[in-house]
């Protein structure tokens, strides 16, 4: 069970209150019709799947119902920070 800090509620809450929403910092292309199949497939399906530091989105489903980002170690599951969408993480690591 993860304990996740919601930067909107400013509280540590249990994982069951949240839902995971995949890798963070993936921007939807502004003009999808101009992309090649490779670029569009890459945007839709290909993720870094890092072993180690990972930036990911979480949704506080039974709390404030807002999205935010989390930096987490996918090997130890330790949550290193949570931060608002639109801001950059302070902890970054080499991803493998």
């Amino acid at each position: 069970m993860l304990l996740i800090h919601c930067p909107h509620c400013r509280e540590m809450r249990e994982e069951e209150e949240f839902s995971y929403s995949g890798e963070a910092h993936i921007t939807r292309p502004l003009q999808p019709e101009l992309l090649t199949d490779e670029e569009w497939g890459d945007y839709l399906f290909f993720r870094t799947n890092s072993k180690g530091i990972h930036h990911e989105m979480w949704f506080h489903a039974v709390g404030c119902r807002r999205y935010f980002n989390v930096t987490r170690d996918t090997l130890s599951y330790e949550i290193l920070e949570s931060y608002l969408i639109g801001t950059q993480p302070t902890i970054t690591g080499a991803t493998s």
Partner: protein
Amino acid sequence: MKKYSAFSLLKNALSYHENWQKVWRNPTPKAEYDVIVVGGGGHGLATAYYLAKVHGLTNIAVIEKGYLGGGNTARNTTIIRSNYLWDEAAQLYELSMKLWEGLSQELNYNVMFSQRGVLNLGHNLQDMRDIERRVNANRLNGIDGEVVSPHRIKEIAPLINISPNSRYPILGASWQPRGGTARHDAVAWGYARGADALGVDLIQQTEVTGIRRQNGAVVGVETTKGFIGARKVACVTAGNSSVVAAMAGLRLPVESRPLQALVSEPVKPCLDTVVMSNAVHGYISQSDKGDLVIGAGVDSYNGYGQRGSFHVIEHTVQAICELFPAFSRVRMNRQWGGIVDTCPDACPIISKTSVEGLYFNCGWGTGGFKATPGSGYVFADTVANDRPHTLAAPFTVDRFNSGALIDEHGAAGVAH
């Protein structure tokens, strides 16, 4: 390799079973191989076995960072079935089923394949519509299956609760009599022994740390025991596939997630089939030892830690107690997690890559064990001939760019 038989058992009994030959060698790696299989789990060992057996390649090594069959092969719930919806997937899993049916004889190793049947329960109208559709599709593909009523389910699994008053009442099920279970470790060991006898080097405790390339083609792998040359490298590394792909500068559309399972204390025989439910989310069978083997859900987040969240286990145990109220008093013995490589369409990737001589077999997600023989068979063919096997052709990595996905979320058994 000495053949196992009633005679050899008798003969070795006379010498107190102290003179059985080693099941496989423990060789030091050669400088170069024709094919290196990265990953010594069930799929990797099956790949090596069929490369040697069917394609006559014997200068092969399997490189495993831990011990053989110590990853997801040792962590799954051993369920075997082939009742997938789409033609492409159904044919791939049915090939596996046919190979399972002769596997113990083929390998001269008892994999304890037991065709005890698999029930996939439906708990609401939409479930039942999906089940009818899937069973019809299966029968058109020559795969056995029938839609059964709650009373028939009760005959098959007498301990099950079919009361209409339960929270999620059972309305029916799909029933595949040829489905069942096998002994997971024995599958890895049987393939390992068979491959070793054909001259394949099984190299354990050796981790691949890099994939060396020259002019866009593979020339070998860097390992913790030094560089080993290879003309072809076939990666079958399940949850670590993204990590291995990154060594060659490739990306894969897979995400690694923890999937958990648990077993109870051994109890007397009480469940002689496999019961699965997507809607309440649990699946259960009883091993020959007597433990109830229970599969839980996949965690929602990415992880490589081989453990998952407690609430996932809690949810599954609730479902099992709802289906089998008698099991509420059974104590659980062990719980563990494995790292599964989930694909966006819940189907595997069996594919060449943009690097010449580099192949990937991954993305089996939550249901790879049942496919072990077929996966090895088609992947060996793909690697040996440098083109996709007919059954593997729909499963190339290109489908995520072309859009020709094979959506098996409905039949995959575990929500991804």
